[in-house]
């Protein structure tokens, strides 16, 4: 029998290292103030998946929001893969974007306060994924993009590690928001505890680079009891403002411009990822209707002073939370990653211009059109 290890050695070893596996880092699920916390540890694995990059019934292309056609809460299964796409962000300006789901911004996920989401994401940055063919088993997003590929997407490859940070989730970032390499898949659960409109983005450093390259989108979490208004809205739209920092590259394509990004000097500031999309395809409404805008400023670095020329926001919920109600606002200031839900009465037939009232941004593209038809009622 052997007994050569000295007590001192053992003690020193213990003090420094402890008996680690008696404690686990994972928190058991619990509720507090009616909200659910403590999700199982994320899983990272490889899978032979080559199906549609975006899966989920309530996942749509901007500016659309899927209606929530269910009572109570739901457990969603959502996939948004990371893929590289060459996209158009303004006429004649194309670059190879790092994307969630194939567009910039990525798809809109709509859930209800209290819903649980099992989220799966494969880093497919090293494979060509076409998103403009209608896909079976995909989401409404896939069909909407196939019908209306306004960024003129084409598949590209640029392998990089990436991650997903849902601002709508309340979890430990070093677990759920973990970075995965090309070819890897991550799966984790989160609960939409707070109502509101929340950005999601890649959190892999340089986060400035990854988000400016296109890795951001929004989750709209509708309050479980709705907004306390006493009326129904006629239309809902989702608008995301974001900046591009692009410079002409060696060939036909534009590339990321670090100097511009680090000096807060975007080449383009846009709504829904394209400089003219909301003029080319104006939002529609009729006079006398109530329109609800879920507006998120996804940055990465700028602010937005969101205004509609010819309109006043009847009610505004800052961050989209029903308790944060304001009335009669001309302009809503949104910091980077800030949002608001805004109801507006469309006064009369005609055109209304959505604009970032920081005019330097407006001149770089942050404008759009709401086209109102005649009053129907």
């Amino acid at each position, binding site marked *: 029998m052997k*007994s050569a*290890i000295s007590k001192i050695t*053992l003690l020193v070893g213990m003090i420094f290292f*402890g*008996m*680690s596996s008696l*404690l686990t*880092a994972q928190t058991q699920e619990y509720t507090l103030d009616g909200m659910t916390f403590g999700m199982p540890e994320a899983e*990272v694995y490889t899978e032979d998946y080559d199906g549609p990059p975006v899966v989920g019934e309530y996942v749509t292309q901007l500016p659309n929001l899927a209606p929530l056609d269910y009572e109570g809460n739901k457990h969603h299964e959502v996939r948004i893969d990371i893929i590289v796409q060459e996209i158009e962000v303004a006429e004649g300006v194309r670059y190879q974007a790092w994307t969630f789901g194939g567009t910039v911004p990525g798809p809109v996920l709509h859930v209800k306060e209290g819903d649980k989401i099992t989220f799966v994401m494969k880093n497919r940055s090293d494979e060509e994924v076409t998103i403009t063919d209608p896909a079976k088993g995909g989401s409404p997003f896939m069909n909407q993009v196939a019908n209306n590929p306004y960024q003129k997407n084409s598949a590209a490859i640029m392998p990089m590690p990436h991650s997903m940070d849902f601002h709508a989730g309340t979890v430990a970032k070093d677990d759920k928001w973990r970075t995965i390499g090309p070819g890897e898949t991550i799966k984790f659960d989160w609960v939409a505890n707070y109502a509101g409109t929340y950005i999601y983005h890649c959190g892999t450093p340089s986060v400035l680079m990854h988000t400016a390259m296109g890795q951001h989108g929004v989750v709209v979490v509708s309050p479980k009891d709705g907004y306390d208004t006493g009326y129904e809205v006629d239309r809902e739209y989702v608008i995301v403002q974001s900046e591009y920092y692009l410079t002409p590259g060696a060939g036909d394509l534009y590339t990321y411009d670090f100097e511009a990004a680090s000096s807060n000097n975007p080449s383009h500031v846009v709504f829904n990822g394209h400089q003219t999309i909301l003029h080319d395809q104006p939002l529609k409404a009729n006079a006398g209707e109530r329109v609800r805008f879920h507006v998120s400023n996804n940055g990465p670095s700028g602010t937005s002073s969101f205004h509609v020329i010819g309109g006043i926001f009847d009610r505004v919920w800052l961050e989209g939370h029903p308790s944060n109600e304001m009335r009669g606002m001309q302009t809503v200031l949104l910091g980077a990653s800030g949002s608001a839900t805004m109801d507006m009465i469309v006064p009369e037939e005609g055109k209304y211009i959505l604009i970032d009232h920081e005019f330097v941004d407006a001149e770089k593209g942050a404008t759009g059109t709401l086209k109102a038809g005649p009053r129907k009622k």
Partner: protein
Amino acid sequence: MKSVIAYTLVFLGIFSMNAFAQHRHHQHEKEALKAGEVHADHSLYHLDAEFIDHRNKVVQLSDFKGEPVIVVMFYGNCTQVCPILIQDTWRLFSSLDESVQAKTKVLAISFDTENDTPEVLKDYAKYEQLDLPEWHFITGKRTEIKMLATMLGVKYQQTSDGHFAHSNLVTVLDTEGKVAKRVEGLNQSMKEASAVITAMLKN
């Protein structure tokens, strides 16, 4: 054996002081686990490398096919942690029935390929009173040791003072060289690992 129990009690006593350190440490281990993720058809015997043991004998991993193998990675100049790790390995080995012990191999593999020559390892084995027929203290080519460590999920990194920061992991390989059980951290219970080995030889 008595002394092992006594030490365990001492450890339990200071356990509460260690909560923070353990938490941090656990993170390491999760990483190591992830790096060494294994699948059913992933035998370590695919590593076609020649190592050398403390008896100056050339050994290949696949030589141990058909036998349960306990693998631990350490380095000789490590005076604080590695003796505990080796002691842990001994606890596992000694917990096996003698008949099981005879059919089980232990590979204590050094990642200090510069200093841990077979002679140094021979001395180490003797000093630890572990120069037993089933035990092989092993060194090899730097690249191949690094590959083996990566396959096991053992991380190590030389620090500027010549020592190594490293994971503390005891791995049990089944008769085909697949990872059957991993025990991470120091002074862990070896009960399960012991049962795993015993069960292997019953089949």
